[in-house]
């Protein structure tokens, strides 16, 4: 993997809503195995940025490149096909289904029963679920249990596992640690690290500076729709980031 080419690059991206410049000439890049945190106050443009990356909004101007090639997304499904998976806060899991069934939701594998009757291949789903979750250091004994039996962090792991299984190159995560208890937040942090170890690119929004410093390689700070600054984690600290956020 040539790490001089970013997995994902955003060049001079703008998105206007009427006269409101939600994003104005913003640029950022994510390299393989890199975790980039998007920080910023409310209304700074973080959500607009990830919605543009994940295909929800079309940019007013500017380019998005995946592995150096310009792309455009007609829909979130289209962005997903091109390797960008977005994990929203609500995780989009069907709580009554197993991990395997959630991973394969909408594209379930089938097999032939007695050579003619097509039936769901639950064994294949369970096996894929076990292997995928093992990649995330999450070992499941009861693969037939519905995901409602799992804790918040584990459900996050299922949502991430689904993205990993379908070969997402870039994972976009909206507040992955919000609404979780402290031990659960740490699990999510370790999940993000395991994605990094697999060479995925991760973009995540968080309000929690602790989490940002625990896991990210770079922090991009947005303020009122523009990039206020971009810092490597080794060269910065909390105060520096807070100053960038509030414009001190």
């Amino acid at each position, binding site marked *: 993997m040539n790490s001089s080419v970013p997995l994902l690059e955003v060049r001079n991206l703008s998105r206007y809503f009427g006269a409101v410049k939600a994003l104005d000439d913003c640029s950022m890049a994510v390299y393989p195995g890199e975790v980039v945190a998007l920080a910023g106050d409310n209304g700074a443009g973080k959500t607009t940025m990830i919605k543009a990356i994940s295909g929800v909004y079309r940019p007013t101007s500017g380019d998005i490149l995946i592995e150096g090639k310009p792309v455009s997304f007609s829909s*979130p*499904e289209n962005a997903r096909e091109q390797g960008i998976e977005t994990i929203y806060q*609500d*995780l*989009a*899991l*069907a*709580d*009554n*289904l197993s991990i395997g*069934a959630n991973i394969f*939701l*909408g*594209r*379930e594998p*089938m097999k032939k*029963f007695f050579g003619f*009757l*097509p*039936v*769901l291949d639950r064994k294949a789903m369970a096996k894929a679920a076990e292997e995928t979750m093992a990649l995330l*250091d*999450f*070992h*499941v*004994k*009861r693969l037939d*249990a519905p995901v*409602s*039996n*799992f*804790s*918040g*962090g*584990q459900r996050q*792991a299922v949502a991430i596992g689904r993205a990993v299984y379908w070969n997402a190159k870039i994972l976009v995560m909206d507040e992955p*640690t*919000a609404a*979780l*208890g*402290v*031990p*659960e*937040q*740490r*699990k999510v*942090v*370790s999940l993000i690290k395991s994605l990094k170890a697999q060479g995925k690119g991760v973009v995540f929004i968080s*309000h*929690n*500076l*602790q*989490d940002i*410093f*625990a896991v990210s390689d770079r922090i991009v700070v947005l303020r009122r729709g523009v990039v206020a600054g971009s810092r490597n984690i080794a060269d910065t600290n*909390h105060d520096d980031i807070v100053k960038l956020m509030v414009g001190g």
Partner: protein
Amino acid sequence: MVEDVTHPHRQVHVAPQADHADVRKTLVQQIAQMRAWLFLAALLIFFEIWARADFGGSFVGSSFNWRSVAIFAVAPLLLAVGQTFVIISGGIDLSAGFVMGLAAVVAAHAINLLGVHMPLPLAMVLGIVIAVAAAGVPGAINGLLISRLKVPPFIGTLGMFGVARGAAFLLAGGTTVPVKNSTFAELGNGQIFGVPYLVLVTVVLVLIMHYLLSQTRFGQHNYAIGANAQAARRAGINIKSHLTRLYVLSALCAGLGGALYAARFTAGAAQAGEPLLLDSVAAVVIGGASLFGGSGTIIGTIAGALVIAVIQYGLVFMNVEPFWQFIAVGVVIIISVLIDQLQRRFSGAKQDE
């Protein structure tokens, strides 16, 4: 913002995650899952004791009793298997009862008209096909209202309840339509090896519906939509077409129910399904489905329908006033839902962290 007590720059080490899906299934949960079968067992024991005490015979040991219970169960079960799918998706089909009545009237007219021009068995088969297809029309309208026009299922199917009711009575001319077709009468009242044809046809339909719900993508998507429609949509499932097909499916089941009703009574009646609608919903709920969607099985619905049929037939058998069966079924529904609530509370408490 949640404050973390750890130092920000320190690497956070996390132990491999424990498996909390290994939830200890409490006794309550196991009972809750099998509640319909437990109800059934309790009822059978009750009627057995009563039969032995009253006249020294057996309730369970009589094949006549079983045949009667099966006949009682057939009509609500035909509605209930379609209703199971709809309820799992988070909806409800209130129109099923009168769609059944409409189909019964259409079957009667069609078989009479066709019988003039062709052999009776052929007229019967074509007539049933026409009746089931006619039932599909209100089903498709329900589906379009709910999926495309975002009408809530309760209201959309309530409207269709009225439309189908009126259409059925108009077609029937306000009365019942007798059928003159001996093959059709044989279908409704004959049996093979002691098993009524009606029961055989129902068993086949139930098996198909069980397969559809438990083994196909359609069934899997149905559960997903009932639990989290947004998640299903994001997973690329076409919810609109799924819902349309779902209500057509429910109506087709009701249509077959109507045709078989006409066979059993050799007459089509617009009010054929009127008392069966709520029985069908009750069977689904007693069978373990939640009206909030996302759970339920065909196996459970079969048990639910049998519970209702055993109550209805058993009370006739005991020779008590028929009005007691309403009370008995009502009590079973309430107990069933209470057990479900209890189980939810227990399993909720088990979700630690």
